[in-house]
């Protein structure tokens, strides 16, 4: 199955792209996907502890199982406001 991985702010800059199409086996969890992304982009590794994960615009835990077509977002700590 395929999912879309969205990257923002620092993560987008490190990876050099805001969106990646990622092919996964059925049953893959968000946590497993993140491990695969970190393996491919090792400069993200230092940020892993502060990463928030969202699927289809909702925060999820790493053990959530992904589905075909999901939009997975890797979110750095937010800093809205002024």
């Amino acid at each position, binding site marked *: 199955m395929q999912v879309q991985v969205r990257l923002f702010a620092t993560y987008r800059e490190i990876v050099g792209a805001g969106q990646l199409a990622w092919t996964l086996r059925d049953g893959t969890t968000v946590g497993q996907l993140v491990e695969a992304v970190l393996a491919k982009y090792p400069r993200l590794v230092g940020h892993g502890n502060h990463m928030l994960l969202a699927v289809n615009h909702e925060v999820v835990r790493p053990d959530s199982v992904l589905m075909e077509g999901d939009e997975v*977002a890797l979110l750095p700590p937010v*800093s*809205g406001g002024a």
Partner: protein
Amino acid sequence: MIEIQRARIDIKAVVSSVRRDDAGAIVVFLGSVRSDPEVQALDYEVYKPMALRTLTELVERAKEKFGALEMSIVHRVGRVPVGGDSVVLACAAAHRSEAFAACAWAMDEVKRIVPIWKTEAGPRTPRSRRGRKVP
């Protein structure tokens, strides 16, 4: 009114959007870009569908938690210059204590959970002038 927009924020429109005949108090928060020798503007990036969803949920929670009657939040994206408002949040309630509490809480939540990120846009002055800053 929940908006993520590039345009300047119309404060009066945000206030008007929360007015109700049964509201005795409206509290408005404006977050502005502060001047700093190293900063000429802030660039805001947003994960828009998630930000809109988070803001909508946040407004509902403010109504339940504090009895707020209406709440509007407008956040800018893109470049906001020094002195510009990045965010305007307005909350109407029957009485002022509820309006203050809901507005302050909601603004903390905006900074805690809404997927918006800022980066500093430095001065256009040549690098040689930047050494003047007192550490």
